């Protein structure tokens, strides 16, 4: 009897837990606290941090072949979930502000500066090109794209990259405003922009088809992301498949978010996560966000000059994706200097352009280093 009890105790997690696993359990609890109490991107950080907790339960082996999460994780490894998330994102996104003000596409492109400066920084810190590309894409502030690229180029860094990307996306209201104020004058921040023109239904229907053809021809590896984003948007705008549109933007995206978040979190096992590289990735991710914001604002300043003071440079910072948080930050910063100034819809243009820009950048990096 005593021997049986001893044997049973030997099979429990209490006697088999390592110090590293204890630290990981503590980290996952801290992340859960941030997600639930501080509301840092809770829709993703709750499943990610709980997945992290599950992956570090001793002897559970949920992520080993045959384990419960292993099979669900195949959707990440085979690059199925991120495009499906994009399908839902597309169904939820109104590209009207972008169609009404096409120059905002350039702001979405400029904000990709963060990706490439971080790529450079990561290379100098000793990461190989594939790892550096995966870390750099954090600067795109687009979780599904970061996961899509990392799972192909550096799956061992996936957990750290996902945690970094989603944590900083939640911290956009803290990271961006000081950079925006530093790079702009009060006069620039007070610019009231012209009202956007109305966009016809036909334009909204043609837009996703044109973007899919143009972007996919240019960077074929980005076709899955861009194609799903635009298919979701076509569901929304064409007006004849309302059921599909509703499913994509509600049930489907919620189910995929649970699968994606939990399994990406579960890749953060102690041996993968508790490394000096994770701290480097967190620091590089912060730099990526800062540089992306700066790139967008600086091009915004150039557009302010070229347009004779008609463009508020604050809309440039929204080019880092993080929809719609980054656009809201532009609005809040603008209203601090001029209450009643409403640039939210103008900032939504670069914001959604940033999503397309990041997907194209991911395609470029896959073309260069995916082989």
């Amino acid at each position: 009897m005593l021997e049986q009890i001893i044997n049973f105790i030997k099979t429990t997690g209490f006697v088999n837990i390592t110090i590293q696993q204890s630290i990981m359990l503590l980290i996952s609890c801290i992340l859960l606290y941030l997600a639930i109490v501080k509301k840092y991107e809770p829709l993703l950080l709750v499943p990610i941090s709980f997945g992290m907790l599950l992956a570090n339960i001793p002897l559970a082996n949920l992520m080993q072949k045959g384990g419960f999460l292993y099979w669900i994780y195949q959707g990440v490894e085979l690059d199925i979930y991120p495009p499906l998330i994009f399908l839902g994102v597309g169904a939820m996104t109104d590209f009207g502000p972008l169609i009404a003000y096409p120059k905002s596409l350039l702001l979405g492109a400029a904000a990709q500066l963060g990706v490439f400066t971080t790529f450079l920084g990561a290379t100098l810190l000793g990461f190989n090109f594939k790892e550096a590309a995966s870390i750099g894409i954090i600067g795109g502030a687009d979780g599904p794209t970061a996961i899509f690229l990392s799972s192909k180029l550096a799956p061992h860094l996936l957990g750290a990259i996902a945690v970094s990307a989603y944590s900083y996306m939640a911290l956009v209201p803290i990271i961006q405003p000081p950079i925006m104020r530093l790079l702009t004058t009060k006069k620039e921040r007070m610019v009231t922009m012209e009202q956007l023109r109305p966009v016809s239904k036909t334009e909204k229907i043609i837009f996703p088809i044109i973007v899919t053809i143009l972007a996919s021809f240019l960077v074929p590896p980005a076709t899955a992301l861009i194609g799903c984003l635009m298919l979701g948007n076509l569901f929304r705008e064409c007006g004849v498949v309302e059921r599909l549109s509703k499913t994509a933007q509600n049930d489907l995206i919620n189910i995929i978010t649970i699968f994606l978040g939990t399994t990406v979190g579960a890749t953060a096992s102690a041996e993968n996560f508790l490394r000096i590289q994770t701290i480097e990735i967190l620091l590089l991710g912060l730099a990526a966000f800062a540089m992306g914001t700066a790139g967008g604002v600086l091009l915004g300043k150039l557009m302010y000059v070229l347009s004779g003071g008609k463009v508020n440079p604050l809309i440039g910072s929204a080019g880092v994706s993080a929809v719609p948080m980054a656009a809201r930050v532009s609005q809040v910063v603008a209203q601090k200097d001029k209450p009643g100034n409403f640039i939210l819809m103008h900032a939504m243009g670069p914001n959604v352009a940033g999503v397309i820009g990041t997907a194209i950048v991911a395609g470029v990096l896959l073309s260069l280093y995916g082989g």
Partner: protein
Amino acid sequence: MNSIAQDLMESLKTGLLGMGIVMIALYLLSLILDLMRYIFYPQARQLKKNEKNGEPVEEIKQQEPPHEQDNQELVAVITAALSEYLQKSATHIRIGSIRQIHKTTPEWGRAARYQNVYNNL
């Protein structure tokens, strides 16, 4: 040292190529969207033509309602309504001016006004 220089060069090349491709792609897209504006939004063509000819752009003139000076009854009604809406005593509300808000105000313009009211700006 040589390896670091090589890595640096490769990173710079990737950066230039990547930024170049994304800039060109999105610029091309913006040109297509501009073209779409001319096709599907004929007012844009008219505005451009007027600008070229040096003609002033015709502005939509909205009829101002007759000035309601000294309309104490209207002031009293609006003060009472605001008092109820903001849950504040009427003695704490001062009406500076009364202006009709046109229905053409876009949704976000109205949202800004509501936000200002809620923040007591």
